[in-house]
């Protein structure tokens, strides 16, 4: 089973802290239950094209995914992040692959057309 953690709008600094807290708790619980974790973030926010609050959340989710991979990649933890255009949903096939294909792990899966030519961290 795959736990999906999706970025939501963060209008305030409190919302930034709350979203990152909730993502941490949800991912920790998922790992403890041996479930895969797929984060979904807005590519424009990863690039920094939106609000500073939304960019912080997107960057934080990216960092959390990488931290989980760094710690658990050799223990069988399975985590990825899908970057989508704002308002878009992650493609179901990509989502399924992100949560199940062993060789796709710890990656940023960029499904954003608008980010072509831009730097994703």
């Amino acid at each position, binding site marked *: 089973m795959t736990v999906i953690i999706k970025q939501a709008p963060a209008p305030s*600094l409190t919302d*930034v*802290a709350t979203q*990152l*807290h909730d993502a*941490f*708790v949800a991912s*920790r619980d998922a*790992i*403890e239950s041996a479930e895969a974790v797929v984060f979904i973030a807005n590519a424009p*926010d*990863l*690039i*920094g*094209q*939106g*609000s*500073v*609050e*939304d*960019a*912080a*959340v*997107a*960057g*934080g*989710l*990216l*960092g*959390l995914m*990488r*931290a*989980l*991979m*760094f*710690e*658990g990649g050799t223990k069988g933890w399975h985590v990825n992040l899908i970057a989508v255009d704002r308002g878009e949903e992650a493609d179901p096939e990509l989502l399924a692959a992100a949560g199940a294909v062993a060789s796709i792990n*710890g990656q940023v899966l960029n499904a954003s057309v608008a980010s072509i030519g831009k730097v994703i*961290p």
Partner: protein
Amino acid sequence: MTATRGCAVVTGAAGGLGVTIARRLAGDGYTVLLVDVNPAVQEVAASMTADGLPAVMCVADLSDDAGVALVADAVVRVGEPLTVLVNNAGITRDARLLKMSDADFDLVISVNLIAAMRLTLGLEDLFVPGSSVVNMSSRAALGNFGQANYVTSKSALVGFTRALAQRWAPRVRVNAVAPGLIDTPMTQAMPSDVLATLVAKIPAGRIGTPADVASAVSFLASPDAAYLNGQVLTVCGGRSLAP
């Protein structure tokens, strides 16, 4: 002791890295406002002043708006335009993921990320055109063991940097420095064999120094970096590329 480049605010200025950055910026010609929640920052300011470096200090807790107001008031009292902000304050509360408490996650996010965002946004009206913000991220933003909280905070700080750079351009530049393994009290406390193993993985063949980081901060703060905006300068001796 004549400052010509305006006021530079450095947070976390009571710590080793903060002190080195503050001294470097003072040497560059800024009047440095040292900010820290630790009252020991008074001794740092006194030491710099004794050495002929222009420095004043402000003890402030940046976990709420009152702390930001204290810093803003201190900047006004300096009597020079605010031209540089270095968000250097940071903490670690390391633990493996399954043993990391909610409180330790939240605290690191609050200090390393939210406080930096709150201060930066709170000082917006004080920055003059041509100013520079330098956020202290970390090479660990790319991933690190037992640091889910720290990595999240430092990666989020990169996001903040990139977005604010676009929002405030062209008036204020916003960049980040991402240090790798640096010779600080934290690394000095590591077992020597562990430290040696880590250093062996650094292509530069040595651990970084606080001065290495301060040089990067000095550059990004300066007019020499006038065309750099929204970037992360990784100061890691090549470690972020090596196996």
